[in-house]
């Protein structure tokens, strides 16, 4: 792997950048692997990386039907935080956040993780109660969290309309200073490059079309580039989780919905922290390029379409103009959607399945970007040991049978 550093950049710059090599090989699929990961999104690539790095499993392929990183990792609003309510979630997201804090160095790839703070604002008495409950839980779980008054919110983001006369006034907020954003594409590329360097085959334009089993055990995958045998298979395909699971005859408690986002034209810096309001469905931050990135709510119907319903954008932008009156004259540049895999309890599934050797990592829905490192880490452990790590034990598929759901609707809000 070519080392990325400033001296290297300058040295190669003097030679016209002619001798950089591909960040990852364009691997041809081999007939057989110890572990095959389906889906080269953030979670799949991170899983492959940690398998090779921490568990010495390097005979690994990551199969991607399109171009690497073109799924939700490439279309999310990039918010990273760990202030979840229930213990199980708090632990895995906080574990992930700690990994984020050293990720650029770990991967030798600047993922531009920017801890500029994350502000959740509340608009009703009940919401403030819920926020206080969450901050309390976070603190006892060792996660940094503060409860803010309206005045403190306003000091942090002066352009926010905190007047008591708006339709849904800001009654206060919570702040996680270690929260922030990362450069989403770089995460996929960084993991791909690092995994590739450890010998992982990343196979793009290779769609999995079938899963073969024998005696209750997964044996191989049918793909558009031939059959590939696998000792173990990890399905990490986000919005397409149900589609892949159904190839193995498994039904999941997941529904896929479009989730939309948009960016504005670039502006000179106007505010730093990420601002989220679940009551009025707004989450917004300004990127290093200067655009405002905004997330919207999910479309109600199940759909795999990547456009989304414009009415959702109308609602979100009305709320944005209420909260940030100066943004009314800023313009929307581009709007898109991704297909998110939503679980009934707004928590993921990182689990074995009734089929031996077949594992699932899905259900991250509207908020799995922030979990990318942690999710890959525990899933690698799960695949390597064929049993879950304590961090992902609560996120098993059978919680839907026992009823031990981890209902994060409040903390997950609508998204991110």
């Amino acid at each position, binding site marked *: 792997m070519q080392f990325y550093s400033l001296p290297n950049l300058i040295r190669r710059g003097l030679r016209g950048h002619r001798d950089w090599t591909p960040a990852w090989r364009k691997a041809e699929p081999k007939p057989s692997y110890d572990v095959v990961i389906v889906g080269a999104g953030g979670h799949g690539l991170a899983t492959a990386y940690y398998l090779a790095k921490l568990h010495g499993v390097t005979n690994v392929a990551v199969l991607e039907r399109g171009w690497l990183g073109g799924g939700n990792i490439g279309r999310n609003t990039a918010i990273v935080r760990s202030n979840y309510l229930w213990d199980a979630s708090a632990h895995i997201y906080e574990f992930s956040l700690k990994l984020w804090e050293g990720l650029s160095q770990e991967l030798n790839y600047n993922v531009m993780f920017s801890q500029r703070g994350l502000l959740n604002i509340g608009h009703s008495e009940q919401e403030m109660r819920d926020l206080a409950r969450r901050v309390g839980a976070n603190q006892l779980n060792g996660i940094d969290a503060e409860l803010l008054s309206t005045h403190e919110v306003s000091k942090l983001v002066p352009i926010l309309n905190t007047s008591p006369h708006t339709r849904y006034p800001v009654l206060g907020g919570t702040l996680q200073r270690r929260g922030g954003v990362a450069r989403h594409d770089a995460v996929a590329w960084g993991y791909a490059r690092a995994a590739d360097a450890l010998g992982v085959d990343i196979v793009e334009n290779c769609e999995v079309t079938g899963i073969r089993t024998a005696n209750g055990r997964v044996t191989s995958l049918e793909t558009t580039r031939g059959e590939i045998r696998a000792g173990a298979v990890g399905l990490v395909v986000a919005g397409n989780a149900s589609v892949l699971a159904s190839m193995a005859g498994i039904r999941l408690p997941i529904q896929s919905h479009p989730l939309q986002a948009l960016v504005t*034209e670039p502006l000179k810096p106007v505010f730093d922290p990420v601002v989220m309001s679940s009551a009025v469905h707004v989450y917004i931050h300004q990127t290093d390029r*200067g655009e405002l990135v905004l997330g919207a709510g999910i479309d109600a119907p199940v759909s795999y379409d990547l*456009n989304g319903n414009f009415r959702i954008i109308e609602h979100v932008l009305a709320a944005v103009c209420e909260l940030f009156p100066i943004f*009314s004259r800023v313009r929307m540049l581009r709007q898109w959607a991704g297909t998110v895999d939503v679980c009934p309890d707004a928590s993921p599934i990182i689990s074995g399945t009734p089929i031996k050797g077949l594992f699932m990592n899905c259900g991250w829905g509207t908020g799995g970007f922030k979990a990318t490192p942690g999710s890959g880490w525990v899933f690698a452990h799960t695949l390597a040991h064929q049993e879950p790590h304590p961090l992902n034990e609560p996120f098993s598929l059978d*919680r839907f049978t026992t009823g031990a759901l981890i209902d994060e609707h409040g903390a997950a809000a609508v998204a991110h």
Partner: protein
Amino acid sequence: MSQPFRLTQGGRIHRDEPLQFTFDGRPIDAFRGDTVASALLANGVTLVGRSFKYHRPRGIVSAGAEDPNAFVQLGRGARTLPNRLATVTPATPGLEVRHVNAWPSLDFDLMSAFGLAAPFIPAGFYYKTLMWPRRFWPLYEHFLRHAAGLGHAPDAPDPDRYDHVHAHCDVLVVGAGAAGLAAARAAAQTGARVIVADEQAKFGGGLLSTSERVDGLPAPQWADAATAQLSSASDVTLLPNTTAFGLYESNLVLLAERLHTDQPDNAGAESGARVWRVLPRQIVLATGAHERPLLFANNDRPGVMLAGAISTYVNRYAVVTGSRAVLFTNNDSAYRTALDLVEAEVPVAAIADVRVDPDGILPAQTRAQGIPIHTGAVVVQAHGRGRLAAAELCSLDGAPLGTVECDLLGVSGGFAPALHLHAQAGAPMTWNPQIAAFAPQPSHDIHPAGAVTGQLDLASALRQGTAAGAAAAAAAGCSNGHTPAAPQAAETPTSDLKPYWLPPGDLARTKPQFVDVHEDVTLDDLRLSLREGFESIEHVKRYTTLGMGPDQGKLANPLATGVIAELLGRDPASVGTPRHRPAYSPVSLGAIAGRHIGELADPVRVTPMQDWHESAGTRFENVGQWRRAWYYPHPGESMHEAVARECLAVRHRVGILDYSTLGKIEVTGPDAGEFLDRVYTNAWKRLRPGRCRYGLMLGKDGMIFDDGVTARLDHQRYLMFTSTANAAPVLAWLEQWLQTEWTDLRVYLTSVSEHWSNIALAGPRSREVLAAAGTDIPLAREDFPFMTFREGTVAGVPARVFRISFSGELSYEINVPADRARHVWEALFDAGRSFGITPYGTETMHVLRAEKGFIIVGQETDGSVTPEDVGLGRLLSRRKDFLGKRSLSRPDSVRPDRKQLVGLLTDDPAQVLPEGGHVVDAPGRRRPLPMRGHVTSSYFSPVLGRSIALAMVAGGRAALGERLYVATLDDDRWLPARSCHPVFYDPQGARQHV
């Protein structure tokens, strides 16, 4: 004349209406009809901005929405508009125009130092560096952030007004150039409902800037006549200044109309905008084509323009954009520009044509003018610093052909159809080798016509437009039997374009050649991207930021497809383009929000007593869309004091509460009882008419969904109360069961939430007050016992009175028709005066019910709470099935250590626990610290003279009396408490039975 580059005649400007605006403070003379760009060019201003990354000087490139450089800031203060394109902004008097991306000034930009570092900061450099030392990243980032961005956001709320309109039509025509106008005419004459939208202030598109003729008239005149004719037709709506920015499924087309753009008193170009949501039956797409730039070194120098734009400035604005021109082309269209320049007396020093043998009519005419034409030749480099000074030519095989002095270099690499809308909708497009670009395929309800199809000549545009308009109308079901004749224009035979993507050999490798001028993406950046394995066009885009600027790569993307194909040695069709997305041109957030802001942000729902509450000085609380009375402070009273006073009034005398927001559903039919049995956990069939019962409703997962009292009005009718927030969800839930599962049950549901207002009269004196207000209902305890209801009149108004209680006191909930509720409220209040009646709000209601240990759905419960958890297991019928029942026997639902509702009493009776505070067995500094549960409700109870709290605590019910601690958000403060039974006041319930 102050406009040295303005021609003395011609153009579509109003010379009799001169005006002045400023650019960076400098006065600019213009005429009405000018754009900011045309006026700047007329005044000889060629430097309009600095590039995004390297801060290189940049000039105007185009005459339309595709410009990558002409971003400016308009106006100031609250009315400022960042990042507007000078090329589409009408010049208006007094307009303040400023550059956006240079410091301290446009001419002297310190940030252009980035340009010097360019060799070391190629595409994606930040991924490879700025990682050490780790803690410096915030500093690096601060610097990056301040270098990035373009314009400035306004500094105060937007004073403008925006709007939405829904529209329906048979045929929507997008683009009012030759093709669009012809299509609109053809569609309109069938009687179809037609809407025509064009981004520009004037209809006509390319017609306004060509010297060609249509039906014998000069093209602009024909455009005017066609527009006038359309505007007089009924059922035709013409929308100039209107961009179609999105095309969605169901053929929803979104248009953004800029309003009042021509009014002089507007400091900005827009004083508002309107978004049209159009649902057309058929769509004619006549959006034209964008000219494609060409690659050569320093191809971003001010003075390098699209050839077609040069013609537009000459013909439409009577502006020459330079004094000596060179043209560089691979097709015939630049020859028309040559002829236009000659007509405008601008010398054309040379034409470099990639083709070896251009044999069309236009090249012949140009040659006849004596203009030197180099065939098989290209421009390899532009010279000059702040502005173009010369063009260096060479032959296709690299042999130098000399350097030609010029201050204007017109380039034309062919035309790429403006198929953005088509592509957004996912309609098919194919690579058309004739034009070396993607062109739309007609789909069943989208009809492309004109230059967007790749047919670039005027006669074809008119023909195709006419055919498309007629076909679209017919497909929409409108036809009058005859197809109109297409307007006529001279056929101009042209010779083929020769695709040209990469400069020959290794020419000019040391100087940047910009593929995306806005994003400063160079040919070398593309090479680097491919070299590093970012080969998919989507990877190239994301790695280099190609096409990600505010122009969305309208010029860059069609060029990049060819360049990448050639670099990879692949077919351009397989390379594709980055996915097209809305918005075609950016749309302000305010316009998309429309009028759903301020007063009209969201309905404010109020009860009939709202005026009364307001005049009583009430503080209100938002509960969903409802505005509810929260508490009624006396002058000088704090919330705490007011609530304490209200609580005691209810406990000792009598209080009155507006509880009108509760949901109310009439459940009617022979199977009503059976239905309730299925949806509630307890039994209903045997409830006697006239009696009430409290019910719990569960989700399928067994978790509490809603609760409330239901009364049996008569044999076949029940009245169900739901919580305020769940009024609509409960009705929808019930209807779903009835309509989709239990279709054999004969039950009708009718919402009467708004018909009946609900006034709660609570407290030991409530019976007396009700009597004093006047009622024909016998009130004696035996006549009207607890948990029954009576119909009669109260204060002369027909009423349903329920003897139910959410406070634990003797209480009546009086339902009266909402149109007389205010009267009844006042009558009760007047009657209550002598009893010390006190209005109370939601806060007091919450305290009173907490003293009684009554839960509030959504406060004690959070979607993970079963009836057993809150101690309501007795309401679970064993004898019948009900929704959610099966879920209650799942392993997790019967876990002994589930969180259960308990009361908490603090050691310090004055200490009110924080709501949301967590309960632990033992305080400590260890993290994570195991939590047993959390406080759901917490108040100071005035009647008990101490604090009380409800909490959900794991295994709490089995260990009542245990010592617990509640965490505060202050690390060192732990509040000791003991758990207790959650009913704090009148545990026997004696008071409500009196």
